[in-house]
């Protein structure tokens, strides 16, 4: 299949190109950018006039819910959501049931995903067996099976010695470790940011110190062990400031922010809106401003969808009893564009947070448009306005705080391996 993507605005954040250029695809690869290679005759011409052509998006946190939670979502539904959102590479956390703590489970997931011929799935393996926070998994074996990093997901460690040893062991082999900075005791029973809204509503708070206490422990242990650590979903101004300092000191850390936290605050709980029950909790306006600043200056390396499909029954409950999480794969692009527009950031550096920079965190060769390289491409209409409604989403998770909101930016084509995997 030879495809000519014609007349689009090509944005490649990695090389900094933002210009009207055609892209030529053949045999799964980008064969040329700009002028057609000699003798190229396309089987298909995609008219990209008025559209942006960028690398397929890379998402650092997408829960696919398999194995174990198929009532919430299936691999089929979520992989379809991914390509509908322009996502061609995604990392999935290990908090499935059973958790991704054995090579067989990881191989099965990779195999099932590959057969769907959609986005590329990069499993993040469990750092401890059963995510119980007690015994290490066979990390080297899991890497052979396809894991790109190790994580404890949102589960606690039995104690800091386990965390210390896990980082030492991972550092031995140079495996990256992804951690959620949240002290389980300080966050105990908490359901919302420990601020004025939780106080008025009588909701148990999760204080910012739950994040910063855990973060300071992690950063000290990174210094001690030399482990490469990615901090997932930071939520507070103090948290990103600590990472900024750590990076300045040369610690091998990266971090991401979930797309919800770049836009929403505790006020968006509205009248106990269960769709706004998220983990980490939505914090104050000051925190949101700091997260946006961190995304702009590169302290936060990536934006992620934190895609967490939850079934309707688990959300049809009073706020504190509702399961945290929201669908996100199909909102990653429009919400990144919204952030760019509001923060007056050019498209190329904004898209870097969901393409080249996210790929750098994942340590994969993706998220860029280069002649000779695999053709994973997202083509979107930056002006197309659409309303977020359950029926407009492919994901089985229909819960998002953005229901009813109009967003700009719609994926028109997603190419994976040079094939049109999705078109709208």
């Amino acid at each position: 299949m030879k495809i000519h993507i014609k007349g689009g605005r090509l944005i490649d954040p990695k090389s900094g190109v933002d210009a009207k250029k055609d892209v030529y695809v053949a045999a799964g690869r980008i064969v040329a950018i700009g002028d057609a290679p000699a003798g190229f005759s396309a089987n298909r011409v995609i008219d990209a006039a008025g559209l942006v052509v960028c690398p397929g998006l890379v998402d650092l946190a997408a829960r696919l819910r398999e194995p174990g939670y198929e009532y919430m979502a299936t691999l089929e539904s979520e992989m379809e959501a991914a390509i509908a959102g322009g996502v061609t590479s995604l990392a999935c956390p290990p908090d499935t049931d059973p958790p991704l703590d054995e090579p067989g489970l990881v191989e099965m997931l990779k195999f099932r995903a590959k057969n769907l011929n959609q986005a590329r799935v990069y499993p993040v393996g469990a750092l401890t067996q059963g995510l119980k926070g007690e015994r290490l998994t066979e990390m080297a074996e899991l890497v052979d099976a396809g894991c790109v990093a190790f994580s404890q997901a949102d589960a606690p460690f039995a104690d800091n010695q386990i965390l210390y040893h896990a980082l030492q062991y991972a550092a031995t082999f140079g495996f990256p470790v992804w951690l959620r900075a949240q002290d389980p005791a300080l966050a105990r029973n908490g359901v919302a940011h420990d601020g004025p809204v939780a106080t008025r509503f009588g909701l148990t708070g999760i204080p910012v110190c739950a994040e910063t206490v855990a973060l300071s422990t992690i950063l000290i242990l990174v210094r001690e062990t030399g482990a490469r650590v990615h901090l997932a979903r930071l939520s507070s101004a103090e948290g990103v400031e600590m990472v900024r300092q750590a990076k300045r000191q040369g610690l091998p850390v990266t971090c991401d922010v979930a797309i919800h936290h770049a836009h929403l605050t505790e006020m968006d709980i509205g009248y106990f809106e269960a769709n706004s029950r998220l983990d980490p909790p939505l914090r104050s306006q000051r925190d949101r401003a700091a997260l946006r600043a961190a995304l702009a200056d590169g302290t936060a390396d990536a934006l992620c969808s934190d895609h967490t499909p939850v079934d309707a029954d688990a959300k049809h409950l009073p706020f504190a009893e509702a399961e945290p999480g929201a669908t996100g794969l199909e909102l990653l692009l429009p919400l990144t564009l919204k952030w760019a527009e509001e923060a007056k950031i050019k498209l190329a550096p904004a898209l870097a947070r969901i393409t080249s920079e996210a790929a750098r965190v994942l340590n994969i060769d993706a998220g860029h448009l280069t002649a000779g390289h695999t053709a994973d491409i997202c083509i979107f209409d930056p002006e197309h306005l659409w309303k977020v409604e359950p029926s407009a989403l492919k994901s089985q998770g229909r819960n998002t705080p953005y229901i009813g909101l109009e967003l700009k930016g719609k994926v028109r084509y997603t190419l994976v391996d040079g094939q049109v995997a999705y078109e709208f």
Partner: protein
Amino acid sequence: MWLNPSNPQLDKKGRLHHLLTLEGLPAEILWQILDTAKSFLGAKVKKVPLLRGKSVFNLFFEPSTRTRTTFEIAAKRLSADVINLNIIVSSQSKGESLLDTVDNLSAMHADMFIVRHGESGAPHFIARHVAPDIHVINAGDGRHSHPTQGLLDMYTIRHYKKDFTNLRVAIVGDILHSRVARSAIHALSTLGCPEIRVIAPKTLLPAHVEQMGVHVHHDMRQGLKDVDVVMMLRLQSERMQGALLPSAQEFYKYYGLTEDKLAAAKPDAIVLHPGPMNRGVEIDSSVADGKQSVILPQVTFGIAIRMAVMSIMAGNK
């Protein structure tokens, strides 16, 4: 960012449809309820037919004797049929979801749900899902709100002090876990009270409580100085199990209301308590039974307040 929905308590004409919290309720509605309650208390006939033919369901997901009983009495004095449901021991233990329970009861042609629930916001959740002609009254949800208690406290204060605009009110004790305190703070602010104080150790104050418009005190005598109204809160015994407080004795020593501490308040200050009291923990018997105590009148006013709320809602068709 959020598409702010309109106040879920009011109907399209701005009248009271559900009573979920006192936060955001216009002062006119609060005065209307207080005035209506006064007319019920002054009436010679105990029973009126305002809710004849209506079914009022007491939906208690958390144990309560006093509040449930006063709602029951109020509904019966309005000639309603009252059905008491103790959900803890029935459907919830059989695994039925909250929504299924509510749907089933709606199908039994309920007109009004009186809801008590352990989770903050549960009455909001129920109100959002019931048929549009059903009214929901919050009888206490988690730490969030207890609006009829807040209203009866306002009634009591008005009864003894007449005017809110020159009052100093102190709320003492476990503010963190108290829906009674939150309701009182909102109501007092709306009715024009210029100075609301909260008195508690830091472990029993929620984060940023001052943003609710209150002055924070940790010293009881300082906090009570020259106040007109002292609102005591119940201290649950389970608060002693964690690290919030060392012991009931130490709490009593520093935050229990004794005659000695009450002397810091104005000589004609009144003392309120939502009950049930822990004598010797948050309040001394000599104060609870003393001449400044208005704790028993609160109970009487509570019935009138609940009658007022139910009759106003039933009238808003």
